[in-house]
């Protein structure tokens, strides 16, 4: 790598790390005042926990070759022999490993025991994330076979989104859901978080070029277009349906667009990014209503935005990908070729099945040992006071 490449990826590491506190604020604004610190804490502690487990074992399980094309080995445990440019690769991948379990936290907001979150997120970061990363980014079967995930549609967004669905199935709904209004307590906080996520996402997607080059430029441009079209799609959809445009809709649509462009950012040009972003805004606006139809309490719509946006983006990558733009990828359906699209479809189904099953088992194990659910009175009083002995807003 040139000095320029190294400099850009170093900066991208910092950008992607910044996304997790951004995500904390994005989520924190959407919960009620009694649970906001718990929400922030779930995210921020994940930074420290995953840094430890990824360094000690996670990186090795993801990127030390692939046993049976399913899981990496133990040769890089404790960063054995990992140095120089590979150490930079480790650091960049660490930031992805951090935000992925953090994404799940939005689904369980307002009723999960904190010790259970620590146990679940730690186990998930050791077992589920490295296997998915081995398949999608490493030497595992999906990557080897030719499916492609530029910056984490499969490995990060579908993986976290379907894990969120699995854990809320075990955890159950918040007391009072869906009849009691559970309104976001601070949308300005959510918008600060959205801005930080968007800013950091340039590191996420353009950094995934792993160099300061044309591919990174393309990814940055498609990311900006995807986010903007996602915002427009969502706002137009809700304006037509409910009669008013909302700030939460604009923020949610931008994130939906960012999610959907993530797997495609380095494989499609700027014009397909319009279609991917706009589709994400429309489809995710519809998808956040599914929890009311099917009765699962995904508090902050991790399923509706990250799972659905991730599936949409991964499949549309199979539609619009251009081998002429990036020789690493097959041509999409728009070029009259079906083989690459089929690989994307199989990749989506494989991550859905694996992550749902593994996450469900982990949730059951934590439930049987520690207990997933906070005490009922603690949930009613609020988790900030009962689980953390502190309050977000002191007015006296």
């Amino acid at each position, binding site marked *: 790598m040139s000095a320029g490449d190294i400099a850009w990826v170093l900066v991208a590491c910092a950008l992607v790390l910044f996304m997790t506190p951004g995500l904390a604020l994005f989520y924190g604004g959407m919960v009620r005042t009694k649970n906001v610190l718990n929400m922030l804490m779930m995210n921020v502690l994940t930074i420290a926990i995953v840094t430890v487990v990824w360094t000690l074992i996670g990186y090795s399980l993801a990127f030390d070759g692939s046993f049976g094309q399913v899981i990496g080995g133990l040769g890089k445990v404790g960063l054995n022999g990992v140095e120089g440019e590979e150490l930079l690769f480790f650091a960049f991948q660490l930031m992805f490993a951090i935000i992925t379990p953090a994404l799940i936290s939005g689904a369980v907001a307002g009723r999960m025991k904190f010790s259970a979150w620590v146990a679940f997120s730690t186990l998930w970061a050791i077992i589920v994330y490295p296997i998915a990363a081995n398949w999608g980014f490493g030497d595992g079967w999906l990557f080897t076979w030719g499916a492609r995930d530029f910056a984490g549609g499969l490995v990060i967004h579908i993986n976290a989104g379907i894990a969120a669905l699995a854990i809320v199935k075990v955890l159950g709904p918040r007391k009072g859901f869906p009849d009691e*209004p559970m*309104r976001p307590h601070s949308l300005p906080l959510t918008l600060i978080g959205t801005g930080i996520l968007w800013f950091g996402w340039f590191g996420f997607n353009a950094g995934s070029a792993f160099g300061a080059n044309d591919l990174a430029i393309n990814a940055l441009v498609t990311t900006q277009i995807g986010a903007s079209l996602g915002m427009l799609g969502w706002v137009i959809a809700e304006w037509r349906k409910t009669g*008013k445009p*909302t700030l*939460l809709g604009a923020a*949610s649509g931008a994130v939906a667009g960012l999610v959907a462009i993530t797997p495609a950012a380095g494989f499609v040009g700027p014009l397909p990014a319009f279609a991917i972003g706009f589709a994400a805004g429309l489809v995710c606006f519809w998808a956040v209503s599914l929890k009311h139809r099917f009765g699962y309490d995904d508090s902050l719509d991790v399923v509706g935005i990250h799972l659905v946006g991730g599936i949409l983006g991964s499949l549309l990558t199979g539609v619009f990908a251009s081998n002429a733009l990036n020789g690493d990828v097959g041509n999409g359906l728009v070029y009259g070729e079906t083989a690459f699209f089929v690989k994307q479809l199989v990749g989506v189904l494989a991550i859905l099945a694996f992550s749902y099953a593994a996450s469900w088992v982990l949730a059951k194990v934590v439930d049987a040992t520690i207990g997933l659910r906070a005490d009922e009175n603690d949930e009613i009083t609020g988790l900030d006071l009962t689980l953390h002995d502190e309050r977000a807003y002191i007015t006296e």
Partner: protein
Amino acid sequence: MKLVIAYIKPYKLDAVKDALAEVGVTGMTVTDVRGFGRQSGQTEVYRGAEYKVDFVAKSKVEVLVDDPAVGGVVDAIESAARTGDIGDGKVAVLGVEDVVRIRTGERGADAV
């Protein structure tokens, strides 16, 4: 002596305070409260889901007044707080047995 309690729209608070000052009121207590009357709440929409919010934010203004001033105080609140829309609020007048100014020990009308 009377205690005048007004439940008003929060953004009318400054207008009510100024109107009360004009009729000679020198003190009041204001509390942020929530409630509903015929307005019966409002609808908010988050990510396409409609929430019926029963309790609407209001300001509660309490003023202690001597009997002769009651009419002017109630009129001042009424005209300053009115928009004509549903949800303008209410004014109640309650009888008060005694009032004590703690600093001086004055009682009754002198303490108002």
